[in-house]
C-alpha cells in the first residue's frame, strides 16, 4: 500500500524530481569546482570521482578513457562546465609552459621549422625567449644547412647566422634561376658594378670587370643548347659583409659535376655577386683530354 502511494507520488512528480536531481548535481559540481580551482598540472578537475589525493603514485581508476571526451570539450572551447573549465585552463596555460623544464621546451622546439619557430616567438614574451634560444637555432642550422661549422661561434648568435645563411642560399638559387631562364637584365642587377668582379665560366675563359662579365653572360645566353642542371651540396660561409658558397652542379649530359664557387658582398642593404668560378668542362677526345675552347 505504502509503496504504491510512493510510486504514484514518484510518477506524478517526475519532472520536479528531475529538477531536484539536476539542481543537486549542479550544486555538487559547483562545490567540487571551487575546491579544485587551483593552478595544477592536471587536466579537468571537475570530475566527480577524482577525490583521491593527487600526488601519490597510485593508479587512478579513470586511466586514459576520458581523454577523448575531455579533448573535444577542450577544443570546442569549454563544453559542459563552460565557465569553470575555461577559467582553470587559462590559469594553468602560461604557468604550464613555465613549469616545463627548459630542456623539454628546447627539445620540442627542435622539431619545428623556422617559420613556425618565428611564429611561436611572436605569441608572448616567454615564448619569445624560448624561441630565441641560441641552441635551438644552432640545431635548426645543422638540420637545414650543414653539420659543418659546429665549432663556429657566430658573432650575432645562431639565429642571425641562420637568417643570413638562408638569405645567401636564396640569392645563390636565384643566380641559377637567372642562368636557367637566361635573364640578362636580372643578371646585370645581381652583379656588383665594380672593376674587380670576376667570372670564370665552364668554358675555361675568365672575365674581369663588370662590363666584360656582362658581355660574357650575354654570349652564354645566346647559345642554342643549354642542358638543364641540378645543384647539390650547397655549403655557405657567411661573414658580416662577405659570403662564399660552394656547390656541385650536375648537368644532364653526364659530364660529371662542376665544382662552382660564388662569392657575394654586402652593400647598401643587399647582397651582390662579385665572383663566379666554375670548374672547366673537360672533353675526352681520342684518349686525350683538352679544355674546351670557346
Amino acid at each position, binding site marked *: 500500500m505504502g509503496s504504491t502511494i510512493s510510486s504514484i507520488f514518484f510518477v506524478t512528480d517526475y519532472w520536479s524530481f528531475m529538477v531536484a536531481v539536476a539542481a543537486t548535481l549542479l550544486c555538487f559540481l559547483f562545490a567540487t569546482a571551487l575546491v579544485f580551482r587551483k593552478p595544477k*598540472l*592536471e*587536466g579537468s578537475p571537475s570530475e566527480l570521482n577524482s577525490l*583521491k589525493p*593527487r*600526488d*601519490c*603514485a*597510485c*593508479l*587512478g581508476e*579513470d*586511466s*586514459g578513457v576520458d*581523454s*577523448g571526451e*575531455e*579533448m*573535444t570539450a*577542450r*577544443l570546442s572551447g569549454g563544453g559542459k562546465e563552460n565557465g569553470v573549465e575555461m577559467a582553470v*585552463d*587559462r590559469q*594553468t*596555460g*602560461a604557468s*604550464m*609552459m613555465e*613549469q*616545463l*623544464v627548459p*630542456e*623539454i621546451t628546447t*627539445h*620540442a*622546439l*627542435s*622539431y*619545428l*621549422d*623556422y*617559420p*613556425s*619557430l*618565428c*611564429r*611561436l*616567438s*611572436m*605569441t*608572448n*614574451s*616567454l*615564448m*619569445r625567449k624560448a624561441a630565441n634560444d641560441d641552441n635551438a637555432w644552432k640545431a635548426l642550422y645543422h638540420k637545414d644547412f650543414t653539420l659543418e661549422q659546429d665549432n663556429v661561434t657566430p658573432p650575432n648568435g645562431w639565429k642571425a647566422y641562420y*637568417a643570413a645563411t*638562408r*638569405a645567401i642560399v636564396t640569392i645563390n638559387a636565384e643566380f641559377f634561376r637567372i642562368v636557367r631562364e637566361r635573364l640578362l637584365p636580372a643578371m646585370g642587377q645581381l652583379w656588383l658594378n665594380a672593376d674587380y668582379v670576376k667570372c670564370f665560366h665552364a668554358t675555361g675563359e675568365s672575365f674581369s670587370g663588370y662590363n666584360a662579365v656582362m658581355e660574357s653572360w650575354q654570349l652564354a645566353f645566346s647559345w642554342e643548347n643549354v642542358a638543364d642542371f641540378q645543384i647539390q651540396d650547397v655549403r655557405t660561409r657567411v661573414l658580416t659583409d662577405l659570403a662564399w658558397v660552394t656547390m656541385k652542379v650536375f648537368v644532364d649530359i653526364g659530364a660529371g659535376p662542376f665544382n662552382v664557387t660564388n662569392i657575394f658582398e654586402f652593400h647598401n642593404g643587399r647582397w651582390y655577386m662579385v665572383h663566379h668560378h666554375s670548374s672547366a668542362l673537360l672533353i675526352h677526345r681520342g684518349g686525350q683530354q683538352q679544355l674546351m675552347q670557346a
Partner: protein
Amino acid sequence: MIPLPLIDGRTLARVITYLNKHTEDDASDEAKRKFDEEFLYGMEVGVLYDAALAANYLDIGGLFHEVCQRIADGMMNKSVEWVRKTFHIESEFTSEEEVQIKKEYAWAWEGVDSNAD
C-alpha cells in the same frame, strides 16, 4: 614502494600503458606505431605537457620523442593566433611590439602565409 613526487596518478597510468605496449614481445614496429597514433591522438595540451614531463623525469626516450613531436606538430605551420589559442598562451605584447617583432623576422615570412591555419 618508490614515491614519484613529480607525476600524478593519471599521467603515470598513461605512461605505464605506453610502456606495456612497447615492451610486448610480439608487438611489431608497425603495431607499436599504430598504438602510438591512437594513444596520442586527441591528447589535449595539458596532458601532453604532463606526459613530456613524466617521460623526461623517467627518462623514457621513445615516449619523450613522440610527445615532443606531437607538441611541435601542433605548432607547425599554424598562424600565431592559432598557436596562442591551442597552447593557451597569453600575450602581453602591445600591437607596436608585435609589428616590430614581425619586422625582425621578416625573412621568415617570405613566401609563407602568416594566417594559414
